């Protein structure tokens, strides 16, 4: 069953197009993350789904029912806000039951529902407290309880973790994921944090300038970004984008990196020349994830075969993080980030031989910024 379907949705604030034609079909049980930089329209989209914001044109269906003109309360949704939006003058219990009270649910049923949710989220001991007496994590939990108690078709989350400190954020992120696995309800989750998007989503919609740039599962988004924006936005550090010229060598395509001093590096791409006929001899952009670049001597076992190439680069800076060492290297005049082993300590300023895993290399059209399929 389709839990949510959005059809050519547009939102205009005066002369500004905030959403420029959004289409989406979401199956029941999915965890969809809307991710993008601030101002991309992701929160507006969530508010339109919730019915808190009117769309200019377009159609929204929730659970197969057209809700485009239906008020928020009757859309069978529940929402968790960034600020949690707990009612300050009500106890935790009052917060959780308020919606049921408004809908005229009998008292016995309300009590049973509170008990169920309190048990699920382990907030039983907090029920009589006021929101002001709770810590950030507890407030977050109560906000989720208030949403859960409704048992809706659709959960909406508006950046629910961004008010928490780093440690708590990781904990609550895992808890939300576990919650989704347990209750199985469809979730639409807005965030600007691409790590949250990657870890939580079954599918990610990357948004930019009021449009969905790509809507796919996390691995596809990461490995085969639809365009340069997605390639640069997802991943930390982002994908290295290196200008190159495509040439042919026997049956294979080769990306040639040429620096100003005339030095050149050749990287063989594991794609047959006939799939890229139009691009042979032309300039394009080569996309390489930092983890695809490693020091030559540290993974000699994978350096054989067509999926690897070698090139030399100058080490400009290293950032050891403990679990790995990030290195900023200069390859043919272009700076790129490489993800090295934790104990790798190449000399700053030295030239080193790097091994490139080209199996996941992407090619982009410099004009349209789209990935070349």
């Amino acid at each position, binding site marked *: 069953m389709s839990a949510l379907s959005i059809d050519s949705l547009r939102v205009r604030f005066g002369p500004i197009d905030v959403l420029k034609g959004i289409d989406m079909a979401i199956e029941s049980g999915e965890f969809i993350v809307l991710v993008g930089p601030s101002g991309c329209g992701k929160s507006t989209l969530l*508010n339109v789904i*919730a*019915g*808190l914001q009117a769309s200019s044109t377009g159609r929204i269906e929730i659970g197969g029912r057209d809700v485009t003109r239906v*008020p*928020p*309360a*009757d859309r069978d*949704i*529940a*929402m968790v*806000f*960034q*600020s*949690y*939006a707990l*009612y*300050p*003058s*009500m106890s935790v219990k009052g917060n959780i039951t*308020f*919606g049921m009270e*408004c*809908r005229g649910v009998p008292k016995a049923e309300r009590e049973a529902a509170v008990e169920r949710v309190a048990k699920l989220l382990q907030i039983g001991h907090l029920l009589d407290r006021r929101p002001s007496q709770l810590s950030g994590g507890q407030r977050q939990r109560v906000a989720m309880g*208030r949403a859960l108690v409704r048992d809706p078709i659709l959960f909406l989350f508006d950046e629910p973790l961004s008010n928490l400190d780093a440690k708590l954020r990781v904990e609550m992120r895992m808890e939300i994921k576990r919650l989704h696995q347990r209750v199985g309800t469809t979730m639409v989750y807005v965030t600007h944090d691409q790590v949250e998007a990657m870890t939580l989503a079954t599918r990610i919609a990357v948004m930019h300038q009021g449009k969905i740039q790509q809507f796919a599962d996390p691995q596809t988004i990461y490995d085969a970004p639809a365009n340069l924006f997605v390639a640069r936005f997802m991943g930390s550090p982002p994908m290295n984008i290196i200008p190159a010229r495509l040439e042919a060598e026997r049956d294979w395509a080769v990306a040639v990196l040429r620096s100003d001093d005339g030095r050149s590096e050749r990287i063989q791409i594991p794609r047959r020349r006939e799939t890229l006929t139009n691009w042979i001899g032309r300039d394009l952009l080569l996309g390489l994830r930092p983890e695809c670049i490693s020091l030559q001597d540290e993974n000699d076992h994978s350096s054989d075969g067509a999926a690897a190439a070698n090139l030399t680069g100058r080490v400009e800076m290293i950032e050891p993080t403990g679990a790995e060492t990030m290195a900023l290297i200069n390859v043919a005049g272009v700076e790129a980030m490489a993800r090295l082993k934790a104990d790798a300590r190449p000399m700053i300023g030295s030239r080193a031989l790097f091994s490139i895993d080209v199996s996941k290399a992407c090619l982009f059209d410099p004009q349209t910024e789209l990935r070349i399929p």
Partner: protein
Amino acid sequence: MVENGSPGNGGGRFVLYAVLFAFAGFYLTPLVVVFLNSFRSLEDITQTSVLGIPHVVQWDNWTQAWGSYCIGGICSGISPYMWNSVAIAVPATILSTLIGALNGYLLSLWRFKGSQIAFGVITFGVFLPAQMKLVPWAITLRTLDLSDTVTGLTLIHIVQGMSFTTLFCRNYYINVPADLIKSAKIDGAGFLQIFRRIVLPLSPPILIVTVIWQFTNIWNEYLYGITFSEGSHRPVTAALMAFSANIAQAREYGIESAAVLLAALPTILVYLFGGKYFLRGLTAGAVK
């Protein structure tokens, strides 16, 4: 040392307190004189001066002022006029505060096209001088057949007060997070339910401010009282005026003093009990 150079040291502090006490004395002198006179007999005052200590404490001034002194031919003291003022000030305060709270809620949390203009028009009433509105009100009261009634004056104060209360409440509610309202909408609460269950419980600080402000202003209001009421329908401020304009009798300074103090008592009590909440409420938004 920093403390020695600050105005908190001996000499500076002495001057500071001297100035403060001088001002306090200046403002309190009339109150003290009136208070003392309210216990002095007429002979005592006329034979010496209005400034003096009561030789014999004359409680009779207070009972006469309250219940039997003649004002404009009606010998009932100021008590019926006090009740008139209560009958005007209490409902007008409650209703104008309630309307202001609803207006403020609507204008801050349910923005609609033109809500800024509506807010501007309503608060413009704050700046209109009262005498400018005398004639329009005279026409309105005559049309509604409410001239020379307590109800008419109540209506005036509800409408006039709405500008202030709307201004106060709107500027207070503008700080209520919009997410609260959104969340309540999703929970299925309607306009009035959100107001009653979520916004009103957050409102005591500002409601105390508007209640004190409105009550004091309406109780002390004089121009409309004297213009639109006569005889037994007067509020206490207008009755006091008629009292002192009583040229047929010798001026009963003692009774007048007692009457003035009685008339001022409600607002003094409101200030004594609510003053600290008033100051707290006015600065509540600023601290946040």
